[in-house]
């Protein structure tokens, strides 16, 4: 009986179905529109390196900061049932802290870049801990708690470098923001891979995943099973802090300067969107980091596709909104339930036909 009912949809649609379908539709759409959209070639860039170039590369490269932030945001969402809207502002702070260390003294050595990055991490983790304390200890709604840093974060970033937007010129910074000589893949893409692997390792080597999900699904039961939900929530914000520091440092390295007003501006909304497109419940609970990463690439691919279609940058947001509404509606529980019902009816019909055939024979 149970075996009979077995089929790919028996546990409902997988969490990754919608984001994967979105990616496939975008790819197919672009293939029909202009097959050369996906052309990848090796060119020599300004630094004299042979590097990969093409729309696909710029999509994957451009989504790097978003993908890293989305990974961290997924954890915060799962544990706290809310989102951190201060990641853009916090990234500006982290980026400023990064530059602050780089600008101290004359030369920029590898060690100094590492030190600057670690400093940015510490700063961003502290601000993450600030947000996390408000949420986990004082039980403030995440959006309200992070509204504080969202509002004042870019002012703090402004103070760090005395209001200036200093530039940093160094081959090392350039390599982080674009290409490492000899490697044709953009460095930010490599960093996304590294961060993704670290997440995977953390899930493999710790109980973070099951604890976070338990806290997000049923905090009361989690507590009675000995889980320290305050710690788990705080930890999610601190991990997001690390992601913020990485994204901020990449952003600074791309431009070779820190502009506290524009660095990763409005990224928080795209980040939350990536988490949502990834099929994660914004009310917390079960999550898939992979879904959020795909969500980030969906958003970026959409943007680049629109630009490739010569949509003006002011109109892009409106077109993006249309596609996103579609995605979110298709991924909604109501549509999913309808689809599953349709599938089960189809199955029943098929079963009926089969038994009929068996009777006749």
């Amino acid at each position, binding site marked *: 009986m*149970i075996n009979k009912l077995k089929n790919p949809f028996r546990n409902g649609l997988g969490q990754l179905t919608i984001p994967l379908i979105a990616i496939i539709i975008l790819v197919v759409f672009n293939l029909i529109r202009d097959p050369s959209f996906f052309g990848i070639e090796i060119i020599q860039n300004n630094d004299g390196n042979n590097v990969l170039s093409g729309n696909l590369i710029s999509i994957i490269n451009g989504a790097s900061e978003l993908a890293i932030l989305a990974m961290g945001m997924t954890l915060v969402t799962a544990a706290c049932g809310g989102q951190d809207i201060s990641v853009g502002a916090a990234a500006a702070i982290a980026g400023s802290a990064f530059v602050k260390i780089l600008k101290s003294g004359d030369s920029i050595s590898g060690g100094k870049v590492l030190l600057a990055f670690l400093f940015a991490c510490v700063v961003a983790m502290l601000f993450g801990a600030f947000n996390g304390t408000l949420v986990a200890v004082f039980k403030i709604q995440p959006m309200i708690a992070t509204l504080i840093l969202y509002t004042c974060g870019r002012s703090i970033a402004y103070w760090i470098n005395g209001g200036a937007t200093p530039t940093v010129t160094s081959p090392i910074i350039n390599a982080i923001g674009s290409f490492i000589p000899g490697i044709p893949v953009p460095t930010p893409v490599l960093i996304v891979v590294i961060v993704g692997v670290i997440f995977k390792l953390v899930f493999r080597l710790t109980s973070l995943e099951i604890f976070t999900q338990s806290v997000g699904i049923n905090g009361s039961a989690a507590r009675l099973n*000995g889980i320290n939900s305050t710690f788990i929530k705080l930890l999610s914000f601190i991990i997001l802090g690390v992601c913020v520091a990485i994204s901020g440092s990449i952003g600074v390295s791309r431009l070779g300067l820190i502009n506290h007003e524009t660095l990763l501006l409005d990224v928080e909304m795209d980040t939350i969107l990536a988490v949502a497109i990834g099929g994660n419940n914004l009310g917390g609970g079960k999550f898939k980091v992979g879904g959020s990463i795909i969500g980030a690439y969906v958003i970026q691919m959409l943007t680049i596709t629109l630009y490739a279609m010569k949509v003006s940058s002011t109109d892009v947001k409106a077109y993006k909104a249309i596609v996103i509404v579609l995605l979110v509606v298709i991924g909604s529980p109501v549509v999913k339930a309808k689809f599953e019902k349709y599938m*089960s009816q189809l199955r*029943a019909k098929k079963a009926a036909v089969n038994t009929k055939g068996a009777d006749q024979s």
Partner: protein
Amino acid sequence: MDNPILLTMRHIEKRFPGVLALNNVDFTLRKGEIHALMGENGAGKSTLIKILTGVYQMDGGEVTIEGQPVVIHSPQDAQNSGISTVYQEITLCPNLTVAENMFIGREDSAWIQRKEYEKKADEILGRLEIPTRGARILGRCSLAIQQMVAIARAVDMNCKVLILDEPTSSLDDKEVNMLFKLMRDLKAQGVGIIFVTHFLEQVYEVSDRITVLRNGELVGEYPASDLPQVQLVSKMLGENLIEELPEVQTETKMIGKNQDGVSLVGDMIRNEIKKNSGVFYEAESLSSAQALPFDFKIRKGEVNGFTGLLGSGRSESVRAIFGADKVTGGKVKIKGEQVKINRPIDAMKHGIGYLAEDRKRDGIIADLSVRENIILALQVMNGFFKPISRSESEAFADEYIKVLNIKTASRETPVGSLSGGNQQKVILARWLLTHPDYLILDEPTRGIDIGTKWEIQKLVLKLAEEGVSVTFISSEIEEMLRTCSRLIVMRDRHIVGELTGEDLNQAQVMKTIAGGEA
């Protein structure tokens, strides 16, 4: 003689992923009758009721009310058709007032002022003799009162069909009698009542007719007077279980009482304790935010119970032992050594496990799989940096699914989609996996079918034999007398008696609870 037919359900079918929950089930309700719907966990009672109330959509079949076919797509449709429900787990809004809960979501509610609400609510509550007021926040009322407010809400909706799903599981005897009186009144007014319960005596006390379901199929419909209790049980458990039944019965006889009303198993365990009388846990004036100071100790391999009426403080006391509420004072010794237990994790590290009273709120992590739910407590004890590997956790889950006979489509099924009894077994498995020295079970058999109840009672005795101390709380005194060798009786948040040996009988327990010893 038969009253006119009020509701019919014909050929009802309902599928869930991997499970056929209802297969061609018929059900008939007449005007002015109380109709008990009986069955084991997973028999399909809850599913049938959820179809009737629009929570689930049926995949096949038809429903008629007073001869007219009706389509029920939502709880609103059900209400409009005159069907009202009080669910097993209370589904009201704890942060709203009693009055708001009684009138929320009803068509006529939008235009009534708050004061009017409360006045109207007070009126209804007064008539039903429910001791609360409309202006109170529901969440501040006891579980029993919340349940009765849910019933009051349903009663006030002028329903033709009233569904009571385990309405008595959190009520004490007085409240149950009040409810039964109300049910009989409604019956006299021509309301058809569908009564779902696990208490067999209650079924016979009020029901006119009994419909039995088993494994999603209809077994039959019987007048209550023509169906002896033993037959009812065998119909519920099914043919393949009938063979097992004599064995279970002899066992219950064995663990039942002898002529003097003394628990045999109690004797057995007491002998065991004499041999091996080390005190495992000892508390001196332990208190928490919810519990007044009390003294308590339990020996290795002892089964004891906390009893008392609802609100007597029995759950609050065991929660204090586990550190579930904020501990405010007292000394605790484990195996003679003084320890501090302020949080659940402290208790767990000292070998204490706690199965909470409210399974839905404090027990299951609904969206996680059976496997993840089973390993959770062990994982917490192992610590953050020592995750249980996938293959190991699968082995644990498979083992306990088999040992406790948990009915689930697979170990990766979300635990929330299991029936109540199987959810409870999953939580039991979770604690058994930690191999506790002391297991606290607060109402482990509440809302659970008889077969599972026996299984759990047997399990408790087996654990005690293995040297595990168990504290067992149940609202069925019968069940506690069968399993416990010592009963601690509470009244008004104080311990008022401790019964052992010959005092362990129903009369004495009742007397102590009621305060008759003075």
